[in-house]
């Protein structure tokens, strides 16, 4: 599936608790397509840090990058300090608004807040206009549509028709609607059509939006997956420690223990 990724593409990746396809990280790195523009929906963690550490990333658009309780994201922070990646710092609802605009085929979405922040000052792609429906004044920020080339995430199941069950993680649907290509890894592939049952259908991203599905048991590891398994915080802490240096990061990534225990 990593072959869908070409140099210079824009990749949308989900927040750590929504279903991160960690199983795809190593194949993406081995595939080696670089100059990637990452969009974190709305924040990033381990996967973003590893792609940055592997030198594949040109820009990171995000509301935050961290390893949660394990602390700061070491390779991301080092790259930010060295100027090795270009930062497009955002705020969570601005990322959602950009995807929402793309979902509707609109050029932008207006969003409250942001005025007077240094986020806005550093974003030449965001615009401030006066609310055209007010009697004058009332400035508001326009967030341009975010249209990723590729969205990648991991969920519990898909059916053999390519329908993907995302439950209440609706941001995964927003990402897929906005993207040209959507790659999904799953814990298991089920026989029954997930759209046939109203209870499961409500939480389904239809195959219409899905480019490819791959089976990857424990595919979010060391992150957890909702309804399935908890995060392996010891492993995330191990990574956080190893990746403090570039050499430590390389050694960690080279080890076969990237496979789930």
């Amino acid at each position: 599936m990593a072959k869908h990724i070409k140099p210079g593409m824009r990749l949308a990746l989900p927040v750590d608790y929504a279903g991160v396809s960690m199983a795809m990280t190593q194949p993406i790195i081995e595939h080696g397509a670089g100059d990637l523009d990452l969009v974190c929906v709305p924040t990033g963690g381990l996967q973003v840090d590893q792609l940055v550490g592997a030198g594949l990333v040109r820009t990171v658009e995000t509301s935050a990058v961290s390893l949660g309780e394990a602390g700061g994201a070491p390779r991301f922070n080092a790259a930010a300090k060295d100027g090795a990646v270009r930062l497009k710092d955002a705020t969570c609802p601005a990322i959602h608004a950009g995807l929402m605009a793309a979902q509707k085929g609109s050029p932008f979405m207006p969003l409250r807040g942001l005025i007077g922040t240094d986020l806005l000052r550093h974003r030449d792609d965001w615009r401030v206009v006066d609310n055209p429906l007010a009697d004058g004044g009332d400035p508001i920020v326009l967030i341009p549509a975010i249209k990723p080339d590729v969205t990648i995430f991991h969920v519990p199941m898909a059916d053999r028709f390519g329908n993907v069950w995302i439950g209440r993680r609706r941001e995964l649907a927003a990402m897929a609607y906005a993207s040209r290509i959507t790659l999904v890894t799953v814990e298991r592939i089920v026989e029954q059509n997930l759209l046939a049952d109203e209870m499961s259908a409500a939480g389904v991203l239809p195959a219409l939006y899905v480019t490819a599905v791959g089976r990857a048991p424990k595919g979010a590891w060391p992150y957890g997956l909702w309804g399935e398994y908890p995060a392996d915080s010891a492993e995330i802490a191990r990574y956080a420690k190893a990746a403090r240096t570039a050499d430590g990061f390389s050694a960690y990534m080279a080890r076969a223990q990237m496979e789930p225990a």
Partner: protein
Amino acid sequence: MAEVLPREVLICTIARLLDGVRHVAVGASSPIPAAGAMLLRAMKEASGAVGPRISILGSVEHNFFTNGSAELFDCAGQGRIDAFFLGGGQIDGLGNVNLVGAGDYPRSSVRWPGSFGSAYLYFVVPRVILFREEHTPRVFVEKVDFISAPGVSPDGVFRSGGPIALLTGKGLFHFDKTRPGFELESVHPGHDLAEIKEATGFRFEHDAEPRQTVLPDRATLDLLRGRVFDELAETYPEFAAQMRRELGTVDA
């Protein structure tokens, strides 16, 4: 009067600051604000009233949302979230918050995770409580290096929310948006005005002899040490266990 732990003072102060809210949102790794919200709920329910709804981000049990991670922000934009907490690597005397980094952006000498939802929530949540236990001049600076979210906005900018208070490990400040600036409201036990001035990089208003922060009564402490720590342990097991260990040494 039983001995009260410093963090119990913080939790009880947060419960007082939240009095009257219908819905409070708490960040994923914020056990003290969560405990304050849970204490308020327990106190309300003990008196036969309805307690606040508490949303803890990233928690499965304390989460009413079914529309992905966008729903919290939509909910706030609709005016359905009354209170929220913000920390910050730096906070200045105008209530500006920096969650991005110290030094010259974008090549910050110290990079923090990022602004998260602050650049929106600070504008639309009516009661934002700034909470940072560490009270030092490196946190409370004269001017932040990067504004993730501004304390006040010019006239004409839509703003239904903003900071109302700043709670630290040493004291409680009230935010006056008309001045704008902070005013020291009370000092926690074991601290004093001179120490707070020394540890604060911005100027603030204060009485010549500031009051001590109100301490919880026996009933409140019993509720906190019983029901609230039990509830807290479901989401923050390590924090609840640590509080109970510290209480063990107090009782002994």
